[in-house]
């Protein structure tokens, strides 16, 4: 049974006004337990809207969202349960930090779950460890951290709730390269250590290709593709027509092939490319 599933999900912003936008149009997807799904799509394709349906922040106009087979919009209780089972970390989460210390801010979610003090403490410290925040930084004010550190503290705030499904909406947007790679690293580690399902929205094809088990491509509120990394990035011309791209390294392989070098083009990581090129050298 899929852990998370939508059935014919449709959602409009501002229904009945001249500003009406159909953000989701008959979306049906199912996500399996423990997989890391990368989500790509042009700006405005409905990625964030879909993510907010997964924890019942938005209620579908039509269709259903099923969490472990149960409709999360059936009643209020189911909705609240979804809030805690599905941890959603919004775009630019550092703008929601508010507590006096990083520790207290990370503890906000677990405290809302009405856990006892010991449990909250354990979760805060573990989440801080996941995101690489050293214990002495926990006593600082969140407003004194650097941009990347703030971002990681905010992500820890969601991880501390120990959601079975973690959703990150563009977690690396607007960070410097080292901040980006740190966050990608922590996501991969988190998935490895906890075995939890992770949904990752990103505009970087390189990031998505490096970590995803499957890729969901959205276009104009609809699902354009939902397939393995290999299959999605194999459809180069379709992606380009959607304003998307393939990973940088895949592009290099494509260009090499164009110039008559007999390389494989289903290569999405630097290591893969290095292997392929070495292989080619040995052949000659």
């Amino acid at each position, binding site marked *: 049974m899929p852990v998370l599933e939508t059935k014919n999900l449709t959602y409009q912003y501002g229904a009945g006004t001249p500003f009406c936008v159909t953000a989701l149009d008959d979306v049906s997807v199912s996500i399996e337990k423990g997989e890391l799904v990368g989500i790509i799509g042009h700006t405005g394709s409905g990625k964030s809207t879909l993510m907010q349906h997964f924890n019942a922040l938005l209620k579908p106009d039509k269709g259903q969202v099923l969490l472990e087979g149960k409709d999360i919009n059936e009643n209020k209780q189911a909705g609240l349960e979804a809030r805690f089972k599905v941890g959603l970390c919004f775009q630019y989460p550092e703008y*929601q930090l508010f507590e006096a210390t990083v520790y207290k801010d990370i503890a906000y979610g677990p405290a809302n779950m009405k856990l006892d003090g010991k449990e909250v403490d354990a979760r805060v410290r573990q989440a801080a460890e996941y995101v690489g925040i050293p214990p002495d930084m926990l006593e600082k004010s969140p407003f004194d951290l650097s941009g990347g550190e703030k971002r990681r503290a905010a992500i820890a705030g969601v991880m501390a709730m120990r959601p079975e499904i973690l959703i990150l909406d563009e977690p690396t947007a607007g960070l410097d390269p080292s901040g980006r790679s740190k966050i990608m690293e922590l996501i991969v580690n988190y998935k490895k250590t906890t075995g939890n399902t992770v949904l990752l929205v990103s505009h970087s094809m390189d990031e998505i290709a490096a970590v995803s088990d499957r890729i969901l491509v959205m276009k104009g509120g609809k699902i354009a593709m939902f397939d393995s990394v290999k299959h999605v990035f194999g459809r180069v011309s379709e992606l380009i027509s959607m304003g998307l791209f393939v990973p940088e390294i895949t592009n290099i392989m494509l260009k090499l092939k164009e110039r008559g070098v007999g390389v494989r083009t289903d290569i999405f990581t630097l290591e893969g490319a290095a292997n392929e090129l070495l292989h080619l050298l040995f052949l000659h």
Partner: protein
Amino acid sequence: MIKDITIGQFFPGKSFIHKMDARAKFSLMFAFIIIIFVCKNLVSLGIVFGFALFMIILSKVAIKTILKSFKMIVFIIILTSALQIFYNSKGTVLFDWWKIKVTDIGMLTALFMAVRIITLILSSSLLTYTTSPTLLTDAIERLFSPLKILRINVSTLAMMMTIALRFIPILIDEVDRIMSAQKARGADLETGGLIKRAKALLPIFIPLFVNSFRRAFELAYAMECRCYKGGEGRTRMTAMKMHIRDFFAVFVIAGLLAGVIWVNRVFVALI
């Protein structure tokens, strides 16, 4: 929800009201607000209310948008008019219970207050609905330029007012976003007593304030980067010109005022 508040937003359009000179529009809106207070009875207020509706239809701003905006202030309207019912003991008693007396005049006064507030909000929001922020600043600045004699920095004040107006919808968006984010962390904004609810608002308001300061600084830097150094000596790309339609509007509003005064005299009885 909170996103339905549209006060301060600008809806571009090509209607008669959109095309009016911003100075004329600003002054006439002000005159209209005075007319609302000139009304002494339900008949004249009814006429003015009807006129406000007419202006909204003329402006082609979607009625639904405006009504949604009203949903949030219904409470204030009800409260103010309800107070009128209980504070008025004149007239025939319709209903008497314990210390509360409801009279016919009380009811009418309540209705009068409600209509007055609604008309006020309708007409004043129409100004920002139909005037772009740039034009509005320009108009305020020109209209108040005589105050320069009193060493008041009119252009800076006008700029501040417009920025404040423009920021209302941005901040509403921001509240919406922060609320979603904290709800995703299990924030409970709907249940509990007064103190619990007030406490629950902290996680919303602290980031809101922090972000507002950040935005304000960013905007200030951006303006300085584009060489804004106060309005002193700034010239304008477009000249403001009064057209026939503006003079026509002045006559209509003057006519409305005369009509209201006349109706006030004729129907003295209806409060």
